[in-house]
């Protein structure tokens, strides 16, 4: 930050034409968050939090987003490994497919999930007939919707972490007799650990904030599918103060994730430093 001031004599003044839009952009990010804090009903905050409906929503949100993140890890880390360490036909297609939920409007994702896992859905119909299992409007549907939207965040950041990990460690492990799965568990995963943690934190944050796909696919059943974002939307219709308070809680959780992310990034420094030393 100091650099911009000190660089000025060497390369010329920092252009006003760049500083002004930057400042406006920052304000656009800052003012709404500040407004949230300014208007929060601090005096009645604790009383409102004790509302069982709110506690239910908070508990449901934390539970579903954590389960969704675990699902993302179990399914997404192997997928990221395949993309980073192997070559196969249709790899470009797979990579494109993984990133679709990033650009897809969540509502569309919710409709698509209904078409797949709904009672009359392509898979859902069979699940219903064969096992008597119905997914929509259950907590499982919430988890599925969150996994759907959060998966790209995990796969992309883990793939990035695996790509920057030196593949020569895989070669050394092989010459020491380690089969590929052993190398994956004992070498590749630990080396990519900080990247995986960062990806998991991003995925968790995305799952926590999920709204569109959830309300479409899982509905807004109190205590079952009404997560914090849905509870906020619900509260906005009747009780703005409660909506603001819930928003402040989610904001606090997001900031906490950001801090955790930052420390895991600095935690990655050891891997980078050692990679340099070894090279």
């Amino acid at each position, binding site marked *: 930050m100091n650099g911009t001031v000190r660089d000025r004599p060497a390369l010329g003044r920092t252009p006003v034409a760049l500083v002004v839009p930057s400042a406006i952009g920052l304000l656009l990010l800052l003012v709404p968050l500040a407004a949230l804090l300014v208007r929060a009903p601090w005096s009645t905050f604790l009383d409102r939090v004790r509302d069982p409906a709110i506690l239910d929503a908070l508990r449901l949100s934390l539970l579903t987003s954590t389960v969704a993140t675990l699902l993302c890890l179990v399914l997404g880390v192997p997928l990221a490994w395949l993309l980073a360490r192997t070559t196969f036909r249709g790899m470009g297609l797979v990579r494109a497919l993984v990133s679709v939920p990033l650009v897809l409007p969540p509502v569309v994702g919710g409709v698509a999930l209904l078409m797949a896992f709904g009672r009359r859905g392509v898979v859902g119909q069979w699940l219903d007939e064969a096992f008597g299992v119905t997914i929509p409007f259950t907590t499982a549907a919430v988890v599925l919707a969150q996994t759907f939207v959060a998966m790209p965040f995990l796969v992309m950041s883990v793939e990035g972490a695996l790509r920057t990990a030196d593949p020569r460690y895989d070669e*050394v492990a092989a010459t*020491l007799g380690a089969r590929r799965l052993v190398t994956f568990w004992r070498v590749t995963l630990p080396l990519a650990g900080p990247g995986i943690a960062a990806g998991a934190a991003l995925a968790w944050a995305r799952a926590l904030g999920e709204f569109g796909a959830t309300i479409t696919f899982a509905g807004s059943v109190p205590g079952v599918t009404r997560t914090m974002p849905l509870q906020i939307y619900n509260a906005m219709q009747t009780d703005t103060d409660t909506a603001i308070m819930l928003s402040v809680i989610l904001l606090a959780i997001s900031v906490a994730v950001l801090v955790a992310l930052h420390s895991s990034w600095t935690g990655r420094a050891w891997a980078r*430093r*050692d990679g340099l030393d*070894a090279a």
Partner: protein
Amino acid sequence: MTGLDARVVLRRGPLEIDVALAVPPGEVLALVGPNGAGKSSALRALAGLTPIDTGHVALGGTVLEDSETGVRVPVPQRDLTMVFQDPLLFPHLSVRDNVAFGLRHHPGAGRVGRRDARSRADEALARTGLSDLADRKAAHLSGGQRQRVATVRALACDPALLLLDEPTSALDVAITAQVRAFLRRHVREFGGVTVLVSHDPLDAFVLADRVAVLEDGRVTQQGTPDEIARRPRTDYVAHLMGMNLMRDGDVYRTFSPTAVTLYREEPVTSARNLWRLRITSVVPHGDAVRLQLRGPVALVADVTRAAVADLDLHEGVEVWASVKETEVTTFED
């Protein structure tokens, strides 16, 4: 046969590498040659890290790879280990666990359990005088310590074949000698086959029982370090040995750069070997100065700094060079 028996043919663009090797257990073979001659590619092919285009690799009578039958044993199942140019210690593991890693998984080490692997790793570190480092991570070791640990990690598995890929070239000059001495001590008592690749002749001559010279993908000369040093067959080997080489049919004639005498005027001399040459390079060489000379023959001459000043020797100057016949070693093919 026991030991390593291989013929490795690799096509790398314009370069075709074709190397045949037969190395009995207990012998250290050094592949030396200029950069880009294909040494490291051949070594990686022996390890199985890159497939061979044509040929075969057999170790202790077991075929590891054969282009005709299509056999190709995956790297982890081959009874070999490799020390790379960079130590590549796993940064998240301690020195002990780095050594134990191979002991737990390598076929030559019998794939022992975690506890056994750790205690055997401690024994291996104790044997090689590295016990002090057991609890440290790679980031807290010096470059020389890391390469020593990498060597112990490879040797502890007791493989049938040990591959060393330029093991001292990434180190500081000051540390190279120590690591080379360490390698000599522990590779010499290793009972399996060792193949070493290096562009540094000292590695080869300190460590190897036999040297194969690889130039442009082919072995141009093979023999004991002594034979190679005394009877170089190519300019590359001669210059590697700091010798001048002249070939006349089947007769090879070598002499040391210090045996060359230079004159500004044509001398009256009894020397039979007298040439008019141009100086193409002048560089310090220890206490002396090394000159490259071109003309009817190409020579390397070492002269004193005083001579450089007295005779005003610099690039582009034409001089007379002579060598006394008594300084020349002659041998036939």
